[in-house]
């Protein structure tokens, strides 16, 4: 290399200096991020080993892993773990299964396409609390809601969503919020599909359905993976929608891990047990992430 490029050695020096400069400029940001994450984590670990009740201040004492035992053996834990997984899985399925046809529709040239796209993206910009309240009071309310009115119009008994199908109601609200995200990612992927590939398939005699199955869907494999990974991260921590609609109930029917931790800390005022729950949630998130990357992450390589 050096024989062909006599200046390569000098270049190496310059590169090294650039690297040192780059690193020292990055330091403050990285350092701040590190502190931002490490301090809460350290404190959470510390609290998780204490008997620490807000109702009984001053009585903190070291209890070892007692908080973990309490949290993990709580019957609410398994119920909320199950709710969490059902919530994440259902929302993922709904957003992808509806997002693909929506993206295909939005990829068609129609009048006012830009406006339609803007409207479809809109739900993503509505705050979770606001959208949950709108769903609860304007759409799903058993007396004055739009769905109740529609049901009565065709002579059916209105569904009392938050009593009869509370988890489904929460799933619908969250799916509505995340559908735009999935649609948008899939739409941009569709737009990057080579036109000549579709024409080649047409020349090869593929019908619209075959083109979708053999050309479009494989092309979407990677963006679908991205949607699954990103949505999972956020769906594991859904909280606001549950807080303002069902408050985790009735019973434990809509309590997920995030909400269970909240109720430990701020309903039962048990900071120690909530901290232990928080750490359990971290472990669960990592397990889910591990399997996700194993199963779908392969698509991201290459």
């Amino acid at each position: 290399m050096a024989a062909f490029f006599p200046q390569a050695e000098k270049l190496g020096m310059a590169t090294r200096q650039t690297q040192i400069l780059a690193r020292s400029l990055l330091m403050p940001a990285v350092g701040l991020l590190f502190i931002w994450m490490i301090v809460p984590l350290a404190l959470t670990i510390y609290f998780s080993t204490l008997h620490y009740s807000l109702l009984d201040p001053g009585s903190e004492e070291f209890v070892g892993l007692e908080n973990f035992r309490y949290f993990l053996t709580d019957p609410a834990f398994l119920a909320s773990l199950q709710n969490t997984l059902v919530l994440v899985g259902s929302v993922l399925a709904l957003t992808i299964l509806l997002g693909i046809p929506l993206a295909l529709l939005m990829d068609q040239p129609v009048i006012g396409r830009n406006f339609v796209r803007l409207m479809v993206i809109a739900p993503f910009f509505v705050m979770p609390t606001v959208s949950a309240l709108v769903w609860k009071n304007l759409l799903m309310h058993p007396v004055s809601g739009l769905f109740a009115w529609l049901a009565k119009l065709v002579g059916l008994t209105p569904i009392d969503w938050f009593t009869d199908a509370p988890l489904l109601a929460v799933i619908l609200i969250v799916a509505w919020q995340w559908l735009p995200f999935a649609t948008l990612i899939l739409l941009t992927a569709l737009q990057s599909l080579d036109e000549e590939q579709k024409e080649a398939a047409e020349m090869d005699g593929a019908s619209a359905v075959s083109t979708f199955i053999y050309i479009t869907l494989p092309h979407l494999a990677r963006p679908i993976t991205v949607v699954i990974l990103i949505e999972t991260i956020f769906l594991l921590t859904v909280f606001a929608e549950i807080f303002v609609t069902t408050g985790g109930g009735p019973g434990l029917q809509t309590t997920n891990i995030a909400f269970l931790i909240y109720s430990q800390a701020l309903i039962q005022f048990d900071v120690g047990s909530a901290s232990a729950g928080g750490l359990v949630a971290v472990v669960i998130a990592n397990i889910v992430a591990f399997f996700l990357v194993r199963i779908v992450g392969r698509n991201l390589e290459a």
Partner: protein
Amino acid sequence: MGQITLQDVQKSFGPVHIIKGADLEIADGSFVVFVGPSGCGKTTLLRLIAGLEDVSGGKILIDGKNVVDTPPAKRGLSMVFQSYALYPHMSVRGNIGFGLKMAGLSKDETNRKVEAAAATLNLTPYLDRKPRELSGGQRQRVAIGRAIVREPKAFLFDEPLSNLDAALRVQMRIEVTRLQKQLGTTAIYVTHDQVEAMTMADKIVVLNGGKIEQYGSPLELYEKPANLFVAGFIGSPKMNFVTGEHALQKGAATIGVRPEHLKIERDGAGGWQGTIAVAEHLGSDTFLYVDAGPFGMLTARYIGELSLHAGDRVSLVPDPARIHRFDAGGNAIRG
């Protein structure tokens, strides 16, 4: 069989007339090249024949049957795209066999045909690779394999070699020509490269501004260009055109002489005199760009090495039998 006839084929995109009435007879088994500058409509004409675009008027007959309302797959043609348009997630085998699979052929039958096509194109060792693991030339061959495996009535090539480097392009040019002769299938080939056109074609269609300027064998086009456009487009370096009094003496508005038909004379008194602006010495050829005053810039070609340099005065004598005459409308005057 693969006889293709165009009758007054027209295409407009909104108010823009791309193809202004094309009539063409393509004989079975012939290799026809559409050539012209960019935007002349050559790719559009090919896509009309393929069925990827709908005609605005006229008829396209394949073996005597009008196919303008037939979907692309039913026309029995196959196409090689400029970008190759290989399916990235399928292996070479999958790519070549996709059309057969769509046609509902059995797995054994498909495999047999795919392997035969791959053998023809020296692709057998790569059958289980993905397109991204292949070189440009190999991808090109897969695209051709996808076309030949369906045993079409005609191949349509849309500038298939434009993404290859110069050396590979020459090699593929020969391979494609040989393959077409071997299979005896009609081929329509679009290119903007007149060297490709001259070397590959049985017949060339020169297109300009949506119109067919001339249709003939490569040498016909070279020796008897129908008009100024064809005369200027075919041949490299370009034909010299001289207008004005000198042309009028020969009874034409413009006369044209190819660079290779100008005799170069040192300190000559006759012919067109001028000063050499640039001299290019290639060893095999010498190209002189001569500033000939009232005749404009002229290009002269000498086969072999000629020791002349910029600034030297020369006189260029056109071969009288090789002077092309054109009328004021740009059409060739014969006789």
